[in-house]
């Protein structure tokens, strides 16, 4: 059974190793999908080939290996059903000890040690009578009646044989009489012919040469018919004997192959008694019996049948003792395996049939759990295997669940890795590779939730593509970078095949990423009590990203902290724009006083100072007004003198 589950998950190991290898001889191609027990594995196969003492049951093919020979148990479903029925059925009622004693008594009555000329018929009759008593037991299933019928038939045949013998003797007597008459008639004809020929040579020519030949001819014909009848009777006797022999041996082999060992032995014992020495050779089932004895020159005999039956009975008894002992030890799983083997070897043995129902019930529960576990394995329902393994472990502590769980984990990992490979291939646009990887992942673990999810994604992808591309184009036209950035993964998947749009998306993502970095930097500077530098970052970024809502929010958050600074910068920019560079420079200097580390202020001061210096003479020359005079009367206010 352990090997059943090892083979059940054989495919897992193949998937993990990634090695395609042919299944071992005798192994289930489906990876154990159908109750193949030890015989399904290469190991089990080797055991069977080299170790004739190894017994195993092959549920898949409905056969059983016993002592190196295959016994056909019927089709697999029937085999399973029979075993399950046995486990579920109540133990057979009746005095089994008495039944066994009765069967042994029949054997004893017919055994060479007890039978002789004096009690030859009496023992046969007693044994014959006991067959009817044994047939009354349920466990016998009326098979003793079959033997009795067979024996009765032989006795009838013997009676017929005797009748034929008498008839044959009578015919022989008749034939001898007929032969005497023919000889007598022939002599008479010869004498008459001789006398007539003497008279003819002396007196007159020969007339009628003979008389009575017609009667002679009829007599000869009669004698030939009698001879033929005798030969026919001889043939009939031979055929009758052969038929009886074949029928009896057939029954004997049938009992053996049906694993009715005790009935086979009784049939053999009757055969030995009923048939004379010349008929003791095996005609029927010789080939089958030879398979049990791997010897090239082996000649099967009646004793071979007896030996096989006795071996089987002994093995069954020992098997049931082992089962009982294992149950007492609490090793229910091993007990279950041994019971299974023993059941199929000696299904009709009283000791098997009488196994207590409560113990069988426990094993039935285990059997059902194992069947369910096997079903989960067949369906590759890996997620539920662990739960069932634990359930079986709870019922049978000796159940080898660790290798199963290990293989299940490996299979799950293999499936997930294939799925990952499928996703990667899908993203890069390699559809063929993605399909192959997905198929592999689904084959290993069909109910992998990731497979389902991915399949849905793939199915929806076409719809998504149809929606996403126009949406992306619209957002690009409207310069809504932030919205594109927020759905970058969806667009990345949808535009994977479109290189031009993918490049645009990449640029947008970089742009917004940089913007976010600046916003984050500004927030960090503000939180470090350095709002002026934060404002510088915001102002610089705002030049290019004035539409970004996140930036606008950050700007409005920081603005109250740097109101004067912002005002100075605003004023400086306005003055510069109006051409008042010196005044703008003064404003920038004031701003720099507030934020000495500001690169923006530094740059502006440097730029404007240079510009002012270069343009100053022109300005000064053209702008210096004439000294004010009292008579001028202009509106320019004259500062009050001190």
């Amino acid at each position, binding site marked *: 059974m352990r090997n059943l589950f090892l083979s059940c998950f054989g495919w897992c190991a193949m998937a993990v190793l990634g090695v395609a290898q042919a299944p071992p001889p005798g192994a289930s191609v489906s990876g154990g999908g159908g109750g193949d027990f030890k015989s399904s594995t290469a190991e089990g196969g080797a055991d069977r080939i080299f170790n004739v003492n190894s017994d195993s049951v092959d549920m898949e093919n409905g056969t059983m290996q016993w002592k190196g020979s295959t016994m056909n148990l019927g089709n697999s479903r029937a085999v399973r059903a029979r075993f399950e029925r046995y486990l579920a059925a109540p133990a057979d009622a009746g005095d089994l000890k008495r039944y066994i004693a009765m069967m042994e008594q029949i054997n004893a009555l017919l055994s060479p040690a007890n039978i002789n000329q004096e009690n030859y018929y009496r023992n046969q009759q007693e044994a014959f009578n006991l067959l009817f008593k044994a047939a009354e037991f349920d466990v016998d299933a009326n098979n003793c009646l079959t033997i009795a019928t067979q024996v009765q038939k032989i006795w009838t045949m013997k009676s017929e044989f005797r009748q034929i013998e008498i008839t044959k003797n009578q015919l022989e007597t008749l034939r001898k009489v007929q032969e005497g008459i023919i000889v007598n008639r022939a002599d008479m004809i010869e004498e008459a012919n001789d006398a007539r020929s003497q008279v003819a040579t002396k007196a007159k020519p020969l007339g009628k040469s003979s008389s009575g030949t017609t009667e002679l001819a009829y007599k000869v014909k009669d004698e030939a018919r009698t001879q033929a009848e005798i030969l026919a009777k001889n043939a009939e006797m031979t055929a009758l004997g052969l038929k009886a022999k074949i029928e009896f041996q057939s029954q004997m082999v049938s009992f053996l192959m049906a694993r009715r060992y005790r009935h086979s032995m009784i049939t053999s014992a009757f055969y030995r008694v009923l048939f004379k020495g010349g008929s003791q050779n095996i005609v029927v089932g010789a080939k089958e019996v030879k398979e049990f004895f791997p010897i090239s020159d082996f000649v099967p005999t009646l004793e071979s049948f007896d030996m096989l039956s006795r071996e089987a009975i002994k093995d069954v008894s020992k098997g049931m003792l082992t089962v009982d002992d294992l149950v007492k030890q609490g090793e229910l799983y091993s007990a279950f395996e041994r019971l299974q083997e023993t059941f199929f070897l000696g299904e009709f043995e009283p000791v098997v049939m009488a196994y207590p129902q409560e113990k069988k019930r426990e094993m039935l529960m285990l059997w059902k759990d194992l069947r369910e576990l096997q079903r989960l394995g067949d369906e590759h329902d890996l997620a539920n295997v662990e739960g069932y393994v634990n359930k079986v472990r709870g019922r049978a502590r000796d159940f080898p669940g660790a290798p199963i769980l290990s293989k299940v984990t490996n299979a799950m990992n293999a499936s997930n890795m294939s799925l990952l490979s499928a996703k990667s291939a899908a993203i890069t646009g390699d559809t063929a590779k993605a399909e192959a990887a997905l198929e592999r992942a689904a084959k290993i673990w069909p109910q992998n939730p990731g497979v389902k999810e991915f399949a849905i994604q793939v199915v929806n992808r076409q719809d998504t593509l149809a929606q996403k591309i126009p949406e992306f184009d619209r957002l690009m036209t409207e310069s809504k970078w932030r919205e594109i950035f927020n759905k970058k993964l969806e667009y990345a998947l949808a535009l994977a095949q479109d290189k031009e749009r993918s490049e645009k998306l990449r640029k947008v993502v970089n742009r917004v990423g940089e913007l976010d970095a600046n916003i984050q930097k500004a927030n960090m500077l503000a939180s470090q009590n350095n709002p002026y530098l934060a404002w510088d970052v915001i102002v610089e970024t705002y030049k290019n990203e004035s539409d970004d809502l996140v930036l606008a929010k950050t700007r409005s958050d920081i603005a109250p902290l740097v109101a004067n600074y912002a005002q100075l910068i605003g004023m400086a920019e306005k*003055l510069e724009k109006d051409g008042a560079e010196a005044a703008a420079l*003064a404003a920038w*200097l004031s701003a720099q006083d507030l934020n000495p580390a500001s690169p923006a202020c530094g740059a502006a001061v440097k730029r404007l100072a240079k510009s*002012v*210096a270069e343009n100053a*003479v022109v*300005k000064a020359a053209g*702008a*210096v007004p004439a000294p004010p005079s009292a008579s001028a009367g202009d509106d320019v206010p004259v500062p009050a003198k*001190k």
Partner: protein
Amino acid sequence: MSKINPLFFALGIPVVVIFILVAVVVPRMGGGGKFADLTPFSAESYRKDWATLQGNAYRLDCQVEQQLAFVEGRGRVLAVKPIEKDSARTTGRIPIFVPVSAGDSFEVGQRFKCKLRVSHDLLVVEGLERF
């Protein structure tokens, strides 16, 4: 033996010294000097609305903070800090243009009395005196 009472010398000399000091130092302390007749420059007014000061000349006491630019043959732009009488009141730096004709050297921390003219928006130094 002199007829002048020594007490006269004892009291007279300090009085003369005090007089001299009052006559020499006080006018300086009062912001006078070379451009004493000019109105002090108001940086605040300039920042607020330079246009109203256009064409005017002012006196500015300041300290050189930084030379912002120098153009050969034209002059230089200095960032100076006005010196306020009220030391508690601080005024930010302002840029002034010193034409090359001024012919002086400037170092950071030097203090000057300047005559400024507001030319358009530019504060042009027309005369200066170190103090």
